[in-house]
């Protein structure tokens, strides 16, 4: 095993797993929310067309634009139509953006496009791929980060710099990008069908900037992120953050249409201070086929990343266990759904810890068994 990876993953497990266990023990209501959320998400998957339609109506009602993309190319074409020749774009961490290859495609068209999550930014300047759903730069040690920043951003930073100084340096750089950005593109932790709202959970504050400072906010996510109500969407944010080890989350952002004000005679006027345009792009890319298949429960995943740390294959293989950005136990399921790649499932030992810790009670080992069957059956 790669020595650096071994050190990094062991540190991450020691720092994260007991913390999550403590959060859930001290806040038992979170497991109740998770159980309820599972039922709500199952209802959405079983009635996906109805919920897509309801989401569309709600987004349009709130003054946003709604778009359904069959696949990655379709999604990128929609983005192009929305942004025209606008050049300055900021992104927030999202697996779906990786899935559709948004950054590299738009960058190749000469646009100035930046990841604003610290980990994703490091992955971007290192020409790398994320190694974990919520901690994309988990494979980089502090020393390595210092070196990368020295080579790509700030000569005053090196291997020996303090972490605080590294973070400050990136913050200074990104602040200029937020202020210059025409477009902010985010993912979504959840989308509520009843209100057309996008919920985003974070700790850094970058998503606040991405969703408020640029004139256009585009949220791109999978159809699997729809939940019936705004309440369910908030619940998903809480369950996701707690199982990721961040409780309470520093920020939960809600975007329901473009910015508006009713301060003059209570007449709603758009835009106000924030974006003048809001768009939701829901991506299919194999998801509706998966809903009809024996992989269906994979779509309940809320991307908390907890299953990674209970998995011996991820400890050994890191981001090679799956097809980036879909790595780890959940990534084996999602590599099958999105990329139709089944081979890495053979690295799974059916240790079963993933299924134990999954807040959505996805029977991950049994689903991976079915993916193995697709590979050699």
């Amino acid at each position: 095993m790669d020595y650096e990876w071994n050190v990094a993953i062991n540190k991450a497990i020691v720092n994260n797993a007991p913390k999550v266990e403590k959060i859930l023990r001290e806040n038992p209501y979170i497991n109740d929310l998770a159980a309820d959320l599972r039922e709500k998400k199952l209802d959405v998957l079983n009635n996906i067309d109805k919920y897509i339609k309801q989401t569309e109506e709600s987004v349009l009602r709130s003054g946003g634009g709604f778009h359904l993309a069959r696949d990655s190319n379709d999604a990128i074409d929609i983005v192009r139509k929305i942004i025209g020749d606008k050049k300055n774009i900021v992104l927030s961490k999202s697996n779906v953006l990786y899935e559709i290859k948004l950054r590299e495609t738009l960058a190749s068209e000469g646009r100035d496009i930046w990841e604003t999550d610290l980990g994703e930014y490091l992955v971007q300047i290192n020409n790398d791929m994320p190694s974990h759903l919520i901690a994309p730069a988990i494979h980089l040690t502090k020393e390595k980060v210092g070196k990368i920043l020295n080579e790509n951003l700030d000569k005053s930073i090196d291997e020996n710099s303090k972490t605080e100084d590294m973070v400050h340096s990136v913050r200074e750089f990104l602040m200029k990008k937020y202020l210059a950005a025409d477009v902010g593109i985010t993912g979504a932790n959840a989308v509520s069908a009843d209100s057309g709202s996008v919920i985003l959970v974070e700790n850094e504050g970058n998503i606040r900037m991405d969703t408020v400072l640029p004139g256009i906010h585009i949220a791109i996510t999978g159809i699997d992120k729809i939940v019936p109500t705004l309440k369910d969407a908030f619940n998903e944010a809480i369950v996701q953050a707690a199982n990721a080890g961040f409780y309470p989350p520093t920020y939960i952002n809600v975007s329901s249409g473009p910015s508006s004000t009713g301060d003059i005679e209570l007449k709603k006027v758009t835009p106000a201070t924030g974006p003048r345009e809001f768009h939701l792009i829901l991506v299919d890319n194999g998801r509706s086929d998966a809903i009809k298949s024996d992989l269906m429960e994979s779509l309940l995943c809320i991307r908390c990343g907890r299953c990674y740390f209970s998995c011996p294959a991820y400890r050994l293989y890191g981001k090679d266990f799956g097809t980036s950005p879909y790595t780890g136990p959940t990534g084996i399921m999602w590599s099958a759904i999105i990329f139709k790649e089944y081979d890495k499932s053979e690295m799974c030992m059916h240790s079963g810890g993933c299924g134990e810790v999954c807040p959505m009670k996805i029977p991950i080992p049994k689903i991976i068994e079915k993916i193995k069957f697709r590979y050699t059956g």
Partner: protein
Amino acid sequence: MDANVRERIIKMKSMVFENLMESYIPFPMDKKLYSSWTESLERNKKTVLYTSYMYQISGILKRYEKLFPKIYRVNMPKKLISLSKFIIRPSDSELQRSFSILNNISSMLKKNGIDFGYLYEDEPYSGAILLESGFLYEFQKYGEKLRDFFHDRGIEKLITVDPHTTNALNRLKEIINFDIDVVNYLEIINFKGSGDYVIHDSCLYSRALNMYDPIRAKIKNAGINIHEDYLVTSREMGFCCGGPLSLISESDSEEISKMRSESLLKVNNNVMVMCPLCFENLSPYIDNIKDLAEVVS
């Protein structure tokens, strides 16, 4: 992943499946020898102790895995494969160890008032390897044959002694109408023991079969002192011995075994396992390692 791996897995599948459908064993093995651990159990009973040869063959499984590619290369007809050249025998000490474990399980069952027999060399293999390699179609087909085998002999209940067999038979209940009772020996006996141990749980017992808490309760009641660490021995964080990976890569499998052993040894020097395959995979790295059935009576 290397295309050869896929080819190797598929070849292994067809060979194991053909062998099972023909003779109820996955590869050539000396069934008479492996069933000679007892002579005192009755043959014709409705309830039988079912070893599926797991304890007896655990020491040679890895050697068979190494042999598979050679067998494919010569593209040998099935009849020749069963010739003695391809029959691997465990060492005397390996065999004796497995025999004394099975005898201890058998005597604990009797002590707990359970009446059972044994099929000796007629005993079939469970098909667990098919399930665990994702050969679900073949597993189902062989499962149907296995069910008919037990029906033909009037067997109504199987007492299993290892996690792989227990899991395979329980999965058959989900997949086909496998209407034979399956019970694991740990569920039906109480025992006594002593000492200080860290438990390496079988993934299948603890997570797939939901036996983590009941097994711990029995071990504690027996008088054994268990050492725990959330990151090493909890149901959520405990992990595999590495064995299942050996079909893909022997060195990766060993790396997991080593990693697991190191973390267990940080908790206690005495390690307890409950699966013959876990023992095989961890014992190269742990001096004081024992199966539960070597510790209790």
